[in-house]
């Protein structure tokens, strides 16, 4: 890029700098080395069968390294990092296929409380999340499987100083191990669907809550959660009565951007694995990486990975800067979802038969990519957002 080039979509007048800061590079290296050592593929495979789906020992180590509180202010027990810093960490977690509730607890839980919680709620929950003592989950999607306000029909009816929650939530990651759930509920009718939505902090042990673990393609821990007349004190409202949807919009943007970063790490690792394989695997007396068809596959993969990286980091940066970025986030999620699938599929093609056995690691990436593609809106959903909000159609 020529020095001083102004990009009209970014902060006008600011110079473009596509490098991470020195601290972010150190964070990346630390996270990569830590996860390569403490989250080997044997653990990933073990956790696909484990009911909890995560290692409490690894969780404590991550807390000890400050990874759980990375993006919380220091006064709440965090390290004072930005969403962009968190994005660097999420990329490494995607690369390592980290199993467990990090995304739920930190991105969906902690950052939502940081965004919309009262001072008392922040003081109560954020330090606990940073220390790894409290795992949170987000209960949003319902059997209608939408990510918009109109899809929320779980009711919260006022009853003296409490609310009674009644309904079903689906695809709730880590519900079965969480201590608290943020439940997105409907508290008002009339007007537009976005009005009358409230977020509740629900104690996961409340009477009336039941969980069913779902069997998913990525063998991750998603649940159906039934709320059967669950009583929640009104002091557990997060962000104000009927004010929940404006909070949820930001939650979903962070979630889509964060999930895109995981996919960047996934596709980068698949590219590297495939290059290494193509250098070593010989057929017809030469490495398969010397064949033009394979080299062209790699050209496509590298373009997809690089494109994903920068489109995802742009979204993360804009969120970090507090810039309006609904269209950029959706562009990232739509593009990265499909690019990651293409890269992983091409990785399979390059690996041939060996990649198709469960013993090989590449299928772990392929299945995880599919789950990430579907989470927080698939490409079709986000293309609608780009059309509406980005292009004004």
């Amino acid at each position, binding site marked *: 890029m020529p020095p001083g080039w102004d990009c009209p979509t970014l902060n006008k007048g600011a110079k473009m700098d596509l490098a991470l800061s020195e601290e972010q590079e150190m964070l990346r290296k630390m996270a990569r080395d830590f996860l390569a050592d403490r989250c080997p593929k044997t653990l990933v495979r073990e956790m696909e069968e484990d009911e909890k789906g995560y290692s409490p020992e690894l969780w404590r180590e991550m807390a000890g390294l400050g990874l759980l509180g990375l993006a919380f202010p220091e006064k709440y027990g965090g390290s004072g990092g930005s969403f962009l810093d968190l994005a660097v960490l999420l990329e490494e977690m995607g690369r390592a296929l980290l199993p467990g509730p990090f995304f739920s607890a930190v991105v969906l839980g902690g950052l939502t409380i940081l965004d919309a919680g009262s001072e008392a709620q922040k003081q109560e929950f954020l330090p606990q999340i940073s220390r790894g003592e409290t795992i949170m989950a987000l209960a949003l999607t319902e059997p209608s499987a939408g990510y918009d306000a109109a899809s929320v029909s779980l009711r919260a009816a006022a009853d003296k100083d409490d609310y009674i929650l009644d309904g079903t939530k689906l695809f709730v990651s880590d519900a079965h191990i969480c201590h608290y759930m943020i439940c997105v509920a409907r508290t008002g009718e009339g007007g537009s669907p976005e009005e009358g939505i409230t977020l509740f902090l629900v104690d996961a042990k409340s009477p009336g809550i039941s969980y069913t673990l779902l*069997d*998913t*393609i990525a063998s991750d821990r998603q649940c159906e959660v039934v709320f059967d007349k669950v009583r929640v004190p009104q002091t557990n409202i997060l962000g104000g009565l009927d004010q929940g949807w404006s909070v949820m919009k930001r939650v979903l943007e962070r979630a889509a951007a964060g999930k895109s970063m995981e996919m960047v790490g996934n596709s980068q690792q698949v590219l590297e694995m495939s290059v290494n394989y193509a250098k070593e695997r010989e*057929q017809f007396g030469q490495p398969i990486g010397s064949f033009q068809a394979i080299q062209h596959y790699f050209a496509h993969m590298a373009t997809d990975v690089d494109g994903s990286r920068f489109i995802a980091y742009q979204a993360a940066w804009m969120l970090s800067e507090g810039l309006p970025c609904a269209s950029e986030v959706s562009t990232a999620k739509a593009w990265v979802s499909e690019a990651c*699938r293409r890269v992983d599929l091409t990785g399979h093609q390059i690996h041939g038969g060996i990649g*198709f*056995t469960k013993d090989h690691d590449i299928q772990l990436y*392929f299945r995880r990519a*599919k789950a990430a593609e579907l989470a927080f809106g698939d490409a079709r959903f986000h293309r609608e957002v780009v059309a509406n909000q980005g292009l004004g159609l």
Partner: protein
Amino acid sequence: MRFRFSEEQERFKNDVRNFLAQEREKIKQLPREEFPETFYSDMGQTGWFGVAFPKEYGGTGHSRMWEGILLDELNVGAPEPVWTAALILGIAAPMILNHGSEEDKKKWLPLMAQGKIRVSVGCTEPDSGSDVANVQTRAIEDGDDFIVNGTKLYNDSYKYQYMITSVRTDTAGPKEKGISILMIDLNSPGITVSAMSTMWGFRRNEVAMEDVRVPKKNLIGERDEGYDAAFHTARNAEWPHMGSPTEIKGSFNTILDYVKQATHRGKPISEIPSIRHLLAELALELELAELIYYRALWLEEKGLPSAGGGAMTKLYTALLHYRIHNAMIDVTGQFGQLARARTGEARRLAPMRGLSPIMFQYGVSQTIAGWSADMQRNRIAAGLGLPDAE
């Protein structure tokens, strides 16, 4: 020009369909993991394993087109993974038919036609995938036998009686020379058949052979002249049953039925333009896949040349296989990631009987198994008369 089967072929198609429906009912009575032996003996009695063998070798003397019709029906109606029956038809038998001596054909083909022996195909080795000539499994003469050492991967040898396989009988010359084809009794001492677990859950096998004694009379064709058989096998590997689009047609119909009744926030998803267009494109490609498949069979029946022979149908259907099964998840959104739970509340949530995760993973394999997509592209290019790269 006529785009219909003959009356006789239509009757055959119906007979096969009815037979398979009966067999599926029978197999439902078996315990879940039990190998369906009776399917093989029942099908043996129909003579259909030999549908494309000449009558003098125990077959019914029909053409490859009839084999294609049979494989079409097996693809959707067989009570277990289709390749177990189809490989016998599509690869093992042609290897003997095209490369065996008269004695070989008379000895082995009737037994295969009657379903009395199941013959798996040992092609792939750890260092021999696309490079079919790179056979490392070694066979050294010892009196009236060969002593065989080596490993074969990704085959169906579990509960099979024989494996037809390529071995190296001479290391002196270029690697294409010195390959022989042997019928190996899988009950021989020194053979270990173990499961390879795959992404899509069906068992494939590793066959490890340590000092296995194989009679010389189990040689198929001439010693050291087996490369053509091996190469021919790879070139023709599985193109009839992997080119046959009936399995993916079945998946497409499952998607269509789902889309017709599913709603999203009270509105039918069939009204969403991007979903309508997706299904329209897939339907168009399925139509093409069927025509390309039958054209490949017809050309072979007539002995006419074509660009790449079965390569085009194998490649086209394989690519479409993946796209259709990706669409299966696409149209269901997040629900598409759900496999059907064995028990409990979660069982009811997965759409399309919870098939989409496993079929999606299966779809990935289709451009790899049976000689990869790029090898098929090489064949098509060669069929167009394009010169080989230096």
